[in-house]
């Protein structure tokens, strides 16, 4: 089984949101609110239980690499399609008490809707704030990495539809290499603040959604140094058991005295 990944490149993204729609069409997701946000052209706002692809719109007072926008003050409009990162050490996966969330043969993280009982623990365990519980349904949902499609060798709906190949899909090794090569090329071309966003060197480990960013990750609401909650299991448990033991000793003392 090939271990696949997304690579999303804002310098190719035209902000058309085809990925959002293709995702909703394929996965039969409901409409997610008809509220005007005022946040540039982004009325989706964030990923959620019913929105598994989200195109961000950044209006920034900076120049876009070599672009010449005839105007006194520098300006750029950056688009980026966000998605579940399918972490190597996935907070949601570790947290799930029912085994509803599983690791597939493609290394992606998949929520089994027929098992999830909506305990909500995955929601607070995702360092990227991706997975959420759908109020009217009670279960937790997020990007399936088009598990059903991949099983049949099909490309995920979002990557297939992307008009400009801003969303690339392939083996994780290939995507990681392309990310590095692309960043080098972009810097060459004058995109001085282009860099690859990759959690590989954090406790989250390799992710199956790689991104090229222009400027700081914070502006995209990407955590600059995400942490997989599970890395704290040992220290937390130790502390818990020690406290419990101490507590019990105190009780014994209290009653024996």
């Amino acid at each position, binding site marked *: 089984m090939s271990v696949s990944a997304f690579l999303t490149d804002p310098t190719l993204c035209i902000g058309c949101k085809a990925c959002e729609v293709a995702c909703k069409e394929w996965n039969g997701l409901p409409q997610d609110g008809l509220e005007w946000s005022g946040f540039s052209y982004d009325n989706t706002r964030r990923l959620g239980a019913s929105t598994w692809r989200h195109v961000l719109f950044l209006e920034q007072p900076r120049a876009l690499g070599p672009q010449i926008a005839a105007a006194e003050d520098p300006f750029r409009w950056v688009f980026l399609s966000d998605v579940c990162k399918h972490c190597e050490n996935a907070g949601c996966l570790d947290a799930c008490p029912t085994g509803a969330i599983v690791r597939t043969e493609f290394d992606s993280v998949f929520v089994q809707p027929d098992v999830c009982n909506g305990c909500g623990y995955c929601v607070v365990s995702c360092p990227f704030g991706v997975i959420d519980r759908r109020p009217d349904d009670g279960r937790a949902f997020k990007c399936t990495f088009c598990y059903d499609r991949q099983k049949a060798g099909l490309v995920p709906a979002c990557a*297939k*539809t992307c008009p400009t190949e801003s969303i690339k899909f392939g083996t994780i090794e290939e995507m990681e290499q392309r990310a590095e090569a692309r960043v080098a090329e972009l810097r060459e071309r004058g995109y001085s603040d282009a860099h690859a966003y990759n959690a590989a060197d954090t406790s989250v480990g390799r992710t199956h959604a790689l991104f090229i960013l222009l400027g700081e990750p914070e502006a995209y609401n990407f955590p600059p140094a995400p942490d997989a909650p599970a890395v704290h299991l040992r220290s937390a448990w130790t502390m818990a058991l020690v406290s419990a033991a101490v507590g019990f000793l105190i009780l014994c003392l209290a009653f024996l005295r």
Partner: protein
Amino acid sequence: MAGFLSRWPFLRQITAGGDGTGPEAMTDATRELRPRLEGAEIARSVCPYCAVGCGQLVYHREGKLVAIEGDPESPISRGRLCPKGADSFELLTHAGRETRVKYRAPHSIRWETLDLERAMEMVAERVWETRERSFIEQREDLPLMQTSTIAHLGGATLDNEENYLIKKLFTAGLGVVAVSNQARI
């Protein structure tokens, strides 16, 4: 009971091992998961929105639409679709779509439903009467052959065959001159 136990992932965990995130935790549904377009019939189609003309594959099964996706073989679009094109399936299946003839009588404040054939008869009547009232065969003994009180609008999202019949009937048949659509040469 035994059946239940055999399907209890916890026992699979004990027997086969696993930390509860792997195959041992998968349900039958997950194991048997397949894309719904698998095995569906395919019609080669074209996106109905803008004029780029992206190729579409329309997946259908037993007279029902299953999905509409980009056609990777199209040299026009290489399998890609924009948000509107990607929403084509919903375009044809959404709840707001009308499927019955609606009729509003003069001065009425409500729609009524109308049988399709009856509606066609009535429209034909209206056209004929209006044409009778306004048709001019000659002016200053030069041929005019027109009716100027019936107008037509539309066409830019219609098929060439449809437009051909419209032009043929309205212009060459009825003498309607006010034939127009949003397209401009």
